[in-house]
């Protein structure tokens, strides 16, 4: 990767590669998040600039503690920033009220987490229904589960599903509302490789079919090949950007 692109990002100039600045749905400027621990200030994010285009598939790589989750959470309307700006289209993500953020999440964002966060007392179908009950443009829970290959498991409770299956339910739950944005924090972190691949395929299918802007955090650099663009975070900054000329299908990944 040419170092120029790195520079261009950190200076806020449009990055080279897949992302067209005119298309940018996420615009992040000078985003800083710090925690005060007594005398010292810990920076989770430092003056970060970023644009992400509509439909883009972005992978965030970086060592533990580099600020990936913090960035994702702010983009998902789950966390506040110390300073700077972040927008999704015309939604303010920094300094917005709780109610505004709730509406943003409800209408536009799907989340997938490392720990599946399913409701144990609800079946697979009902866990998905949880979202379709409150979303405007939802698909049927069955359809969402079919997209992740779980048509056979509709009426199973989480305790009756394997980890990979549970994670696919979580993905189905995230995409059932046909979100504009799909945010995944280490979705394969708790899974073995083959299961991880099925889960990633599901994410891939969804993002392609629905044209969803997708951001995936991972520790696993192999997964980076799936992305349009790979952002390497370090110390709360984007240290390096890789642009993939072509996305590799998840099924071809191996680790």
């Amino acid at each position: 990767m040419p170092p120029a692109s790195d520079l261009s990002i950190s200076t806020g100039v449009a990055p080279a590669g897949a992302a067209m600045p005119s298309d940018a749905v996420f615009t992040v400027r000078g985003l800083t998040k710090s925690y005060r621990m007594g005398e010292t200030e810990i920076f989770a994010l430092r003056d970060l600039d970023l644009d992400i285009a509509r439909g883009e598939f972005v992978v965030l790589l970086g060592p533990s503690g580099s600020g990936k989750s913090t960035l994702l959470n702010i983009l998902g309307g789950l966390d506040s920033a110390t300073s700077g700006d972040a927008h999704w289209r015309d939604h303010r993500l920094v300094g917005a009220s709780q109610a505004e953020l709730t509406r943003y999440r409800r209408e536009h964002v799907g989340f997938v987490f490392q720990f599946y966060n399913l409701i144990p007392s609800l079946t697979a179908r009902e866990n998905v229904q949880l979202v379709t009950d409150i979303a405007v443009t939802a698909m049927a829970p069955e359809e969402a589960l079919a997209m992740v290959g779980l048509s056979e498991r509709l009426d199973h409770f989480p305790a009756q599903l394997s980890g990979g299956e549970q994670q696919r339910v979580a993905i189905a739950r995230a995409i059932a509302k046909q979100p504009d944005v799909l945010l995944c924090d280490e979705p394969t972190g708790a899974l073995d490789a083959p299961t991880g691949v099925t889960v990633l395929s599901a994410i891939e299918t969804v993002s392609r079919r629905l044209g969803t802007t997708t951001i995936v955090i991972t520790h696993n650099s192999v997964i980076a090949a799936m992305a349009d663009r790979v952002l390497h975070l370090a110390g709360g900054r984007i240290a390096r950007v890789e642009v993939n000329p072509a996305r590799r299908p998840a099924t071809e990944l191996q680790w």
Partner: protein
Amino acid sequence: MVSALVTKLGRDLWAMRGQTLTIALVIASGIAVFVASLSAYHSLVASQADYYVVSRFADVFASSRRAPLALGERIRAIEGVAEADLRVVEDAVIELPGDPLPRTGRLIGLPPDGRPTLNRLHLLSGRAVEPGARDEALVSAGFAEANRIRPGAIVRARLSGRLAAYTVVGVAVSPEYVYAAAPGDPLPDDRRFGVLWVDGESLATAYDMDGAFDDVAIALAPGASARAVMDELDRLLARYGGLVSYDRSRQTSHQFLSDEIVQQGTMATTIPPIFLLVAAFLLNGVIGRLIGTQREQIAVLKALGYGDREITRHYVGFVVAVVGLGIGLGLGLGLLFGELMMASYRPFFRFPSLDYTLRPWVPLVAASIALGAGLAATAGALRAVFRLEPAAAMRPPAPPAYRHFLFAHGSNARVSAAWMMVLREASARPFRSALTLFGVAVSVPLVVMSLFWGDAIDLMIDVQFAAVERGDAVVTFVEPAPTRAVRAVARLPGVLLAEPLRAEPAVLRTDRDDYRTAVVGLPAESTLRRLLDADLRPVAVPAEGLVLSSRLAERLHLRVGDAVEVEILRDRRPVERVTVTGLVDDLIGLSAYMSETALARMMRDSGRAGAVSVRLDPRAEGAFQAGVLASPRIASLGIKSLAVENFRRSTGAVVTMVASVFALFAVSIAFGVVYNNVRIALQEKSRELATLRIIGFTRLEVARLLFASSAIELAVGIPLGLVLGYHWVRILVLAFETEMFRIPPIVAPASYLWSALAVAAAGFVSMAIVGRRLARLDMIGVLKERD
């Protein structure tokens, strides 16, 4: 160096301060009610016992019409009599200068030295009556206080028609008048009834009793039989118009005082233990559940190598801290409210001093029950965790087998997934709700029982002073008077209607039992004094036969149709067998009723009246009172509106005090229980709720889901509690029934409503407090945790 576990203990207590405090509050409420009631009760018991000994309260009493003082020799010679005090006791109308209201005074003649050896007087202020001082008087404390009479004041008494003026020289209390109720009045009315101790000789002269007495108080020798002494005394006094003698159990002050103490005792031994046990039970449940939420931490400690014993010690420390806080709080509040309850008794019970007594076992028992309940819960909850392998305990408990609901199966579900979550949780863990439900269901009757006392008073007033006694005033004659005296009263200004009341002292005898009471003679078409059955329907006075209070019938094992021997203790003491023709449901007292004519026939006179019940023209009350003051034959005047007012003021003060304290603690218990359960539910569900928030559920939607089950628990628990309350009150009044009072177990609808509202409010406040926490739900933190 503080060990990490001790640090954890401190942090946990602080982090859970809301719960710590409310759990402490639950048990503190139980303890406070227990300690307050029992200490107040014990204080009364101790004051009574001490005072009776110090003041040499007599054991046996009798009165006669006029007995020669020489009879004293023979009375003192009765075997078992240690000491006898012969005296003159008379009731008279009393006037206070510048006050038109006629009062009733009981005048008691003092021995020549002014100091009775039995029923000794205790001076609160002033000095004793000087020997031979004919115009000096001591007045009873309540009367003095209510009428602001101080030494130096003048009190006038109409002694057998002649007006005597006394200078008050002192204010005194007497063991005979600890509870100073006018004859025939259910409650002391200090404004209208007072005792005057005056020079005995001059009092005797005024009533033409020189060299004679009409009242005797006797102290028994140790081990003497009261029965034998009374029988002998009756035999001696019979010739002198003696009424049947009686022991302390029928002495008015003692009887009321003892009933009151018994009631306080019942109150202290029924309701507070229920409070304490309910609180202990709930404490047990709440602590069990609280420790249940710590199971993963316990597993981690075990994985780190801590033994069961260390872990147990840690949680015992936690529970002891929480329960200890509750005990401390409960004892503090208990002492405070105990003193307050005592203070509310003071105007009722005129002891020289009413000191606060706390028997050591009371706080000990309260603390042990609380601690026992807390530790039992800890042991149970820890045992459940210790049974598991640490690895298993570190995983969240295996989810219960959730059920598919037929009605909601498949994609055509009518129930939203979120509500399905609530439903499944509730059906999979039916007993989880049980604790809250139970807590709610038992707090409601605690409030109902507390409010019930006010209702009981209202009902007693309604029944006694509206349905039974329908006149506005009752005048009592110095001596039973012929019917023309009734007509004279009817002619007094302002009297619209006058009806004679005749009450003759009598003994009712069956083969097994006897009972001394009054036979009341009523006109056939009595309108001012009515007899009522259990449903408050008027019962006609039968031309023949006897109508009994149902409790008297019960006591004598009599039924309608049975015959009972009636001896009237006056004049020639006629004895007749009379058939019981009906029962009435008096709330106060045990009486027997006859038609006026049947009683006159039995007494072989043409009808006499001891008192007259009158209906007054409200505009002419003053003129009526003046008329009464001017009538030499009237000994006392009872004014109903004043009696009602007095009843409400005196009893009302005590009951309101006790009831509001109880109700307050009952609501605290409800609050503590609901708060803790909602709080624990939040803890258990925080992960799911945070997930819902992330998905886009609003705070309100999430709150609705969290509180749905609590709201249902309230909605089910409160009606259940009202039903429980209804039954508890029925059981409770049985425990409270005394010979003098019967309390109808009728709770006013408003009290049910208030009980329900109070507990519902406690529930909603709990939810509101927990709801604030919900707003701060950590959405990100929860994502870092594994399932």
